[in-house]
């Protein structure tokens, strides 16, 4: 029952570069927004303070 009317799957070789390059960048952005306390961004607690309300209200542990 799997191949009738199924939209054509995007072949893995075409997905691979995106998964290898874009996903780490996007996850880094998410990390900086949600969790960084200076270790990665090297901005001290600036990112933490700037994203403070968002972290609390998006539900991640803030402090």
């Amino acid at each position, binding site marked *: 029952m799997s191949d009738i*009317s*199924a*939209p*054509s*799957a*995007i072949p893995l070789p*075409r*997905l691979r570069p*995106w*998964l290898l390059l*874009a*996903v780490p960048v*996007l*996850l880094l*952005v*998410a990390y*900086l*927004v*949600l*969790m960084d*306390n*200076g270790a990665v961004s090297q*901005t*001290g*607690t*600036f990112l*933490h*303070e*700037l*994203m*403070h*309300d*968002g*972290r*609390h*209200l*998006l*539900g*991640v*542990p*803030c*402090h």
Partner: protein
Amino acid sequence: MVRTLVVRGLLIGLLAGFVAGTFAFVFGEPRVDAAIALEEAAAAAEPEPASASAGEAGHDHAEAAGHDHGEAAGHDHGEGAAVSRPVQKAGLFLATGLYGLAVGGVFALVFAGLRGRFGPRDDGALALASAATAFVAVILIPFLKYPANPPAVGDPETINSRTALYVVMIIVGLAAVAVAVATARRVTAGPWQRRVAAGVAFLVPVVAAWLLLPAVDEVPEGFPASLLWNFRLASLGTQLVFWTAFGVLFGWVSDRVAGRPALSPAPSGG
């Protein structure tokens, strides 16, 4: 194709992030302000000058009150640039927008991988099902174990372990979905057998993690229960608004794009 999906995910994520930010601003910020007011009152009531204190309790309070919340705190720990409350409220939209951007991009790539392989056949239904599943796996399951906390709740000394535990719960939620899907694909007895098997397969890792991972309860003595409840509701609501807006918009746009050639066979040139 992939790039189209990623751009769609990024833009719709950004938009849904601003929608969720607006919800958080209206329903969440009053609770954040109330919690900060309590935190500052508690810090003000602290007898010892916190900056000079080397004691355990004094240090904790200095951290909790001092590293944050700009004006009233006063005990900035050196490199931490103080960000005032109005800027933090603007930062809310920056945070939810960037969160939406990042999550939207990842979602689009997952969607690209699922399409034609797993789940509903039409893009709109797949977008809705994926967004709903993502909300449950990445938001609801971690929330049930480690619910969101307002300022003044949570010991700064344990932030790293709490963050790690939170990430573990996200991984557990995603793994539970993978296990459930794999199980559903193996059960051929009938639709209800398949659904029940998938549900049980989902619950086993979630319940196991819920029981095995350490509890976190750092609500200070006397913190108002109603404020905690309202804050947590606003926080979960923010994520629900985000994932609902994102799933609906992504599905809607995908269906419109997919439907365009069928509706107007001659592609409009310009």
